[in-house]
Structures are given as structure tokens and as C-alpha cells.
């Protein structure tokens, strides 16, 4: 089984356990450039939504700091992606992989919204770590190797460096919130 397929499976398992079959309807390694752009944008947008929920529900300064960082960074990356697509006169293409991401995120957000206090903080921190880990695998192992447009490849490369830092930061948050 290829690393790309494993990454796709891991993402599906993490984000939408009930929709694994649907997720595999479209292997992330088989997306075209415009579908990759769409999925990457959606992945960022999901994390922005999660962060807004955290700002609404958490009083923990570390959680709120991380949420603020997610909004600031993912908005910047998504704006850069939109600017590139505008420059290329291209339009991102919706696809089954993006839809699975959205479905999993919607379900996850609904679950987290039921929590409060320390239970929410722990859930948010652990979710952010798992989310960044799996998204980083997909971006690094499936999106970047397969994207054809050089500018989009470069943008994804820069974004991945940022997302890896987020993953590291999320791991620290898990320790801090859990202690």
C-alpha cells in the first residue's frame, strides 16, 4: 500500500470515521491541481472554523493563543491561494475529497460544541494535533508530489512548513492543557 494511500486513509479515519468509504471514492493522490487547490483551501477553512469555536468556548490563554494563530495563519495562506488562482485565472474545483473533509469537520465541530471548560480544551488540543498531523501527511505525500503547476507547488511547500510548525505547537498545547 502506498504512502499516499495510507495518508488518505489516515485522514479519512481521523476526520470522518463514518465516511471512510466515501473518502476513498477519491484518492487525494489522484486529484488534479484545481481539486488540490480546493481541498487545501477547505482544509484551512475548517481549521479557521475550529479556531472560532475555541475562541467562543475556551478561557484558557494557551488555547486562545493557538486559536488566534490558526485564524491568522490559515487566513493568510488561503488568501495567498486565492490570489494565485486569480492570477492564473483558474477556479478551484469542488470534489469528493473536499466534501468528505467538510462532512467530517461538520460532525467534529458539532461534537466539540457540546463540550465546555477543560473537556473542550483537551478535545480541541487533541483534535488540532491529529488534524495537522494527517493534513500534513496528505499535503506532503499526496498534494505536493502530484501537483503540476510550479507556483501552486511552491505555495503548498511554504504552507506545509507553516502547518508543520502548527503541529509542533499543537503537541505542546496538548501537554500544557492536559497537565
Amino acid at each position, binding site marked *: 500500500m502506498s504512502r499516499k494511500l495510507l495518508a488518505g486513509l489516515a485522514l479519512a479515519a481521523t476526520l470522518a470515521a463514518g465516511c471512510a468509504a466515501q473518502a476513498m471514492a477519491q484518492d487525494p493522490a489522484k486529484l488534479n491541481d484545481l481539486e488540490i487547490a480546493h481541498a487545501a483551501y477547505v482544509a484551512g477553512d475548517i481549521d479557521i472554523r475550529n479556531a472560532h469555536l475555541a475562541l467562543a468556548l475556551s478561557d484558557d490563554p494557551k488555547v486562545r493563543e493557538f486559536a488566534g494563530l490558526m485564524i491568522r495563519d490559515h487566513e*493568510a495562506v488561503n488568501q495567498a491561494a486565492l490570489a494565485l488562482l486569480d492570477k492564473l485565472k483558474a477556479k478551484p474545483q469542488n470534489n469528493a475529497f473536499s466534501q468528505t473533509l467538510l462532512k467530517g469537520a461538520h460532525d467534529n465541530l458539532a461534537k466539540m460544541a457540546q463540550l465546555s471548560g477543560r473537556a473542550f480544551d483537551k478535545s480541541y488540543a487533541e483534535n488540532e494535533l491529529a488534524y495537522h498531523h494527517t493534513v500534513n501527511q496528505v499535503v506532503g505525500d499526496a498534494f505536493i508530489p502530484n501537483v503540476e503547476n510550479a507556483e501552486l507547488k511552491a505555495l503548498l511547500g511554504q504552507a506545509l512548513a507553516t502547518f508543520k510548525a502548527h503541529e509542533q505547537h499543537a503537541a505542546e498545547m496538548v501537554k500544557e492543557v492536559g497537565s
Partner: protein
Amino acid sequence: MTPVANSGAGSAAWGRRTFLGALGLAVLMRPSRADGATVEIHQLKFTPPEIEIAAGSTVTFVNLDLVPHTATGASFDTGTLTKDQRKEVQFPTAGEFPYFCKFHRHMTGKVVVR
């Protein structure tokens, strides 16, 4: 008649040479932009992470990343730098000035002023 009052052509040429020479010397001695340094922010790192400059020189921080950053020390702060924004900071006195990015806690650097 003093030499300054002498307005002969030879004196004027000498005066120009002296002025230009002095100007050149002043330019050579003055801490110029070339004496300053640039720190690039790229891939969530300050590059170079540590620089040494002369007192009175400047450091230009330039953000090449997609995401916003700051270079923030105890006595200076670039404020938020978005992609391709730059900020020049002057360091008038000797010392060591560690700094970090307010948004990305693992990003650190240091300016050493001699």
C-alpha cells in the same frame, strides 16, 4: 586678502577637490546602509538567526513567508509584518538583543551590537 576670499579658478578647483574628498571620507566613515544587515524571515525561521552589527547601524527585517510574523525584543518591535513587508530597526547602543516572533513562539533570533 585671505585664501577663502580668493576666487581664482585654481582655488575653486582646489575647494571642490577638498570638499569632495571630505565628503568621500565622511561617507566612508559614516555607518551606511551597507553597514546594516538584513534578517530574512522564511520558512518560519529568522535567517541568519544571529547577526553582529556596529552600534548605530540598522537591521532590516523582511518577511518572505505567507503568514504574518513579528521580530519582537525587549526594546524593539517591528509590529506585524505581512508577506514581503519590511521594517528597519536601528540599534544605537552596544549589547545583545534577543528577539522572537510573537505569533510563533519557537522562532527566535539575536542581534549583537558591538
